């Protein structure tokens, strides 16, 4: 896009990133010495026990939290720079919609703040249709179901074609069926847009089904336990979860997770 992006640079690159949170009673090592690198267009899922720093890791990449030590590059730039260029879309655990805005106006929010650098990509209307919410443009958040709200927030994160999509347990609060459908929609969007996705989940099956690689984090202090490649046939389909290969991978993920 701009001169600051090094062509061929990894989408996300962390070198010995540590984050410590100070408080009066204790000091929490949320992340310790995290290093990995992701090539553009890849899909990484993050798994790990509660409190191991998955959210913190996403927030470091999104420039919400600054690392205590270590360094990182996002698309070859400082994370703050990538954020200002709107290269990063963030989907929070709860949809975080503005309740006074309609679905469409929530998707439009990124156009109305932050100097809204003119970007190409799909229009807010197209994005709502992409996440299956055509016809719901005028609905207020409280008139939508949890899954629909989350889809609005995904549409909002996709506005302006960000090169990096950070998703923090976006489907955690949904029922299995809705979750399966949204997983497929997400894979569909990923294949269409070619963004790099970092996806936090607590579900072993979701991690295996979505990711090209699974980054397993261990807790206290949060550190990389293992980067596990997923070699399942592409494009993924839900039926894949009944195969022996998927079962073996899920079993392995579970075994590693239990040692974290």
């Amino acid at each position, binding site marked *: 896009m701009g001169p600051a992006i090094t062509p061929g640079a990894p989408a996300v690159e962390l070198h010995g990133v540590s984050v410590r949170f100070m408080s009066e009673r204790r000091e929490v090592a949320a992340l310790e010495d995290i290093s990995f690198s992701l090539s553009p267009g890849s899909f990484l899922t993050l798994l790990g026990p509660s409190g191991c720093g998955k959210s913190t890791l996403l*927030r470091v990449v999104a*420039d919400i939290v600054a690392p205590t030590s270590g360094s990182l590059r996002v698309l070859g730039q400082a994370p703050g720079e990538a954020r*200002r260029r709107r290269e990063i879309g*963030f989907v929070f655990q*709860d949809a*975080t919609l*503005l309740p*006074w805005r309609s679905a469409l106006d929530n998707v439009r929010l990124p156009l109305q*703040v*932050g100097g809204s650098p003119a970007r190409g990509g799909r229009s807010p209307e197209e994005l709502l249709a992409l996440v299956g919410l055509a016809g719901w443009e005028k609905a207020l958040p409280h008139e939508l179901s949890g899954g629909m709200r989350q889809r609005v927030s995904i549409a909002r994160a996709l506005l302006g074609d960000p090169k990096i999509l950070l998703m923090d347990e976006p489907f955690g609060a949904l029922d299995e069926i809705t979750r399966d459908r949204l997983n497929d929609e997400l894979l569909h969007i990923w294949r269409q847009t070619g963004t790099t996705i970092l996806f936090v989940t607590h579900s072993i099956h979701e991690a295996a089904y979505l990711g090209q690689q699974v980054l397993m984090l261990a807790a206290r202090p949060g550190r990389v336990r293992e980067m596990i490649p997923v070699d399942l046939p592409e494009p993924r389909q839900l039926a894949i979860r009944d195969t022996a290969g998927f079962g073996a991978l899920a079993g392995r993920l579970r075994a590693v997770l239990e040692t974290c």
Partner: protein
Amino acid sequence: MASDVGMVHTAAASPARAAAADPARAAWLAAQRWARWKRRLLPLLGAASLLFAWWALVAFFQVKPFIAPAPQVVAATLWQKSDILLANLWPTAIEALSGFLIGNLVAVAVATLFVHRKGIEMAFFPIVVLINSIPVVAKAPILVLLLGNGMAPKIAIAAVICFFPTLVNMVRGLEAVSPQSLELMHVLSARTWEVFIRLRLPTSIPYLFSALKIAASTAVVGAIVGEWIGSQEGIGALIIQATYNFDSALLYATVICGSAFSVAFFLAIRMLERICVRWAPQSQS
């Protein structure tokens, strides 16, 4: 057989008629209607019975008119002296409304300053909360002494009285944004003023309205109490005059007149709230 099909068809096509035919639903609808009537009638009935009790007590004990008037006398006074009452309501209304406007505007401005300059908030907010906890009737005389006579001081009193509750609520409202929506704004690189306009201000609107509803009645109280001391006109002045003249009927009529204005003011604010805060699914009334 043909008629059978026809019947099924009608029932499916007009659910309303199907509902009417359903005795359980009809009974439920009747119960709903009755409940609606009860909600409207019972308060009226309650008020009527109290009026009757008032009338009966005054008549039975032969209460002297200068101690308490009979309700029909008050009603007659409201009618006969409506020109005096209205002439005195005007200044009070103007004072209350102007004080309301000024006090709330300044409160919103100061709340904005507080939220953006934490140091100033830390220095002054505790004092504001403290002053806010002093009852209006205790604050007003102090302000009367400070500000003296004329219309402007009464506006000032009403304004000062509105100022504190609104400031306290507005600061809470502007700070009631979820950390996650602030993070969202940060990811979008929103500037401070954009966060204020797009996030903090809309979040604070329900808080603002609950303060405005309080302020609507306290502004009137402020204006009235302001008129108690050395004032020639206004509801407050009329209350004092009527009291000193033992004209209890006029006193009651004046109080009713002032309350009616205060209630109308409150209802107007509540209507505005209903229009402005459509997005909150359950806003407590």
